């Protein structure tokens, strides 16, 4: 039974990793698009970021060295990732619910991280753990786990309630959206209840993580706790299969689209990439396109439908 639980958790983690990787690779392999940036672009010079300016504000901009401020991007990204700054600015009503939910998830991820690191310490430096570090890991797990579960459950219920109450959201809400939120609530409630009801002799999260890493068949996990772990594992596998994998999408929508202001230079890498796309053979049907599936994109672009037959 315990082994089956371990296998499910490893399988779920594998599905999660593979699905995330698959999605990221799929997006990364789509051809580079035409420029479509939106300002402000935070890697611009700080003085420019303040008003949303670009290098186009410089006369003869192509002669000036291109500045790229990683610090500028981080200044934008960290508050966005941790505190959902955009939502705070543009949709405060939703932020109260969404932030609670997402921050709860962050705490749960932290709990998982602490448990795994603690388990590794157990295995690699048992004397340290015996010297009292174990208590630190246990209390950290308890605090982040309890707070994370509470916030994520409250947040998911609040989001579901908001989706059903707000007319602007309700008509766009599908059964799938509600299931997603319900899945979070149920998995975390079962996990929390199972953990709290597990009894003094049952393993805590740290001990379970150690068992998971060592594949310990003797670890006895009570059924309610095991059910919670099982549901949580399935949830982890499910997330990247849905639009909830926006943590992957967001990398591309920001770095590859909104902030992609890289100019095309003669003889540069971009030019070489685009040259490949210009050999594609479009098949659009409208007559003025003259895209018969034989002409390349470059030939279609060089064609003048208004002067056909004129020489």
């Amino acid at each position: 039974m315990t082994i089956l639980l371990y296998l499910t958790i490893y399988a779920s983690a594998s599905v999660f990793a593979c699905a995330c990787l698959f999605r990221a690779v799929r997006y990364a392999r789509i051809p580079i698009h035409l420029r479509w940036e939106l300002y402000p672009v935070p890697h611009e010079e700080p003085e420019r970021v303040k008003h949303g300016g670009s290098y186009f504000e410089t006369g003869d901009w192509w002669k000036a060295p291109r500045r790229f401020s990683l610090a500028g991007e981080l200044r934008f990204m960290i508050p966005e990732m941790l505190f959902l700054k955009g939502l705070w600015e543009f949709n405060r009503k939703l932020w109260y619910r969404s932030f609670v939910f997402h921050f709860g998830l962050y705490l749960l991820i932290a709990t998982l991280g602490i448990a795994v690191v603690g388990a590794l310490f157990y295995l690699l430096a048992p004397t340290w753990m015996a010297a009292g570090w174990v208590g630190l890991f246990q209390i950290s797990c308890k605090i982040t786990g309890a707070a994370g579960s509470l916030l994520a459950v409250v947040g998911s219920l609040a989001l579901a309630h908001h989706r059903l109450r707000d007319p602007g959201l309700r008509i766009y809400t599908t059964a799938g959206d509600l299931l997603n939120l319900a899945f979070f609530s149920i998995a975390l409630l079962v996990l929390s209840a199972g953990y709290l009801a597990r009894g003094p002799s049952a393993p805590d999260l740290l001990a379970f993580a150690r068992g998971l890493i060592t594949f310990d068949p003797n670890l006895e996990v009570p059924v309610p706790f095991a059910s919670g772990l099982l549901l949580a594992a399935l949830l982890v596998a499910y997330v990247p299969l849905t639009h909830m994998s926006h943590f992957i999408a967001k990398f591309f929508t920001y770095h590859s689209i909104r902030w992609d202001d890289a100019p095309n230079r003669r003889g540069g890498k971009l030019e070489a990439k685009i040259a490949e796309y210009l050999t594609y053979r479009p098949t659009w049907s409208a007559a003025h396109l003259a895209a018969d599936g034989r002409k390349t994109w470059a030939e279609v672009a060089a064609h003048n439908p208004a002067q056909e037959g004129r020489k």
Partner: protein
Amino acid sequence: MSKQIKPGDMARTDGKPLLHLENSDLMALPGPFADRALDPAWAPLPAQTRENYECLLDDTCAVNVPHPKTRKEEEDLVRSFLSGLDKLFTKENNWTFLQPLILTMEHCARCQTCSQSCHIFEAAGGSEIYRPTYRSEVLRRLYFKFVKKGGLVSAWQHGDIHINWPLIARLIELAYRCNLCRRCAQTCPIGADNGLVAHELRKLFSQEMGIAPKELHDRGSMLQLKVGSSTGMNSVVVKDNIQFIDEEMTEKTGIKVETPWDVEGADVLLIHNAGEILAWPENPGAFAVILNAAGISWTLSSDLAGYDSINYGLWYDDAQFARVAIKHAEAARKLGVKKIVLGECGHAHKSLSVVADRILSGDLNIPRESSMTFLRDIVMSGRIRLDPSRNDFPVTLHDPCNMVRLMGVVEPQREIVRKICPRFREMEPHGVDNYCCGGGSGFAIMSGNNFPDWRFHVSGRKKLEQILDAFADCLDPAIPKYICAPCSNCKGQFRDLLAYYDLWEKHRIFYGGLAELIVNAMVDVERGFIEWEWH
């Protein structure tokens, strides 16, 4: 007004529009228009239009798609749409925007954060069909059902939709109820882009089905590719017109004005929106005065499209877009200029500087610069003598979306205005947070049926509010006021919007470009370049 229209209602077969708006449904206006009775009445859509064309969305009709005559024709149109839908998601057909489109399709959380940022949705009192996610949701459901071949599970996860000709006919119109200002995309926490969705739908209709508003296609990009300009001016006519402008400017300024044509090896090829030459000749005239006074080596080009910077393909068709951009670059290459400077036209700025950047390779990749920075560098260099007291009237600055939010040219025009206009005041919000004038994405030149009524009441309403607020302290008609709009299409919208609400007659609110303000302040020019006369 029904606000509870659902995405599935797009397929309704009752032959009725989904939405009817009354003035009382619209966002309230400030100041003199707080009294809704002063809001002009809408012209009804002509019965003949309804009889001949698909007008199933709202109170107007932008595209004029004829009714299919037979059941078979209707089925063919649906098939053609589905074929285009497939192509929209292949790299061979749509490498140009595939990545942002797929990310938007697959990751919009429908949280509606974007809704409050949309001036059209707000101005229309929150009408559901104008919500930025509404048209996206229709496309998203079609994408999962027909492109991803989703079954029942997909329908349950993403929502189902029934496809028929009425849905497609409505979607054609709905693609033209968005200014493509992308203010919605700016606020999306995930980075989804509902403005892009309208753009991609327009492309599908044009590139696969051959459907686009005649103002953009037949009389727009096709005419430009045929004679050189969407104004219909060929190179002989444009030279005549510029000569006339030179003469008028010489008379008006007291300085000999001469516009150079086709000068090989000039430093700068200046490309105006040719609409300026016909509608606002003082703008290209002012450029000539400034550039000559500053001793710039510059030229205009008489090559096909070389004298008209417009590129309407940006709004509806990638092929037409690329063709015109290439013509612009070829004109510069032929003359061997060091750079292209784009006149006061927002979409021309974004077209040639930003969006076409990756299409123009090799010797077609000629540096392009904004006239905002170019003029700023001239003004700040001290090469022309300026007297700000000549511009001693309230001035506010409109930010063309294509130039500001979508290109990041924000400060140069402000540096100029702050230097030469002592009574400058900002609109709120401004800069990259600006609101579209309401004429963006081609609307300013689309005047069929009663579309202008929609353009003024709905898409232009937020800008009207901003103008009234910016001049709230000086609405007295004794005080002339100036909206500086460094974009030809925006100026077209302002001209029509101000006339519609009678703001020149009632409050002396005028509009014009940036170059005119500079020449108006030039010490070496006779006073009164800006004439304060409504044309």
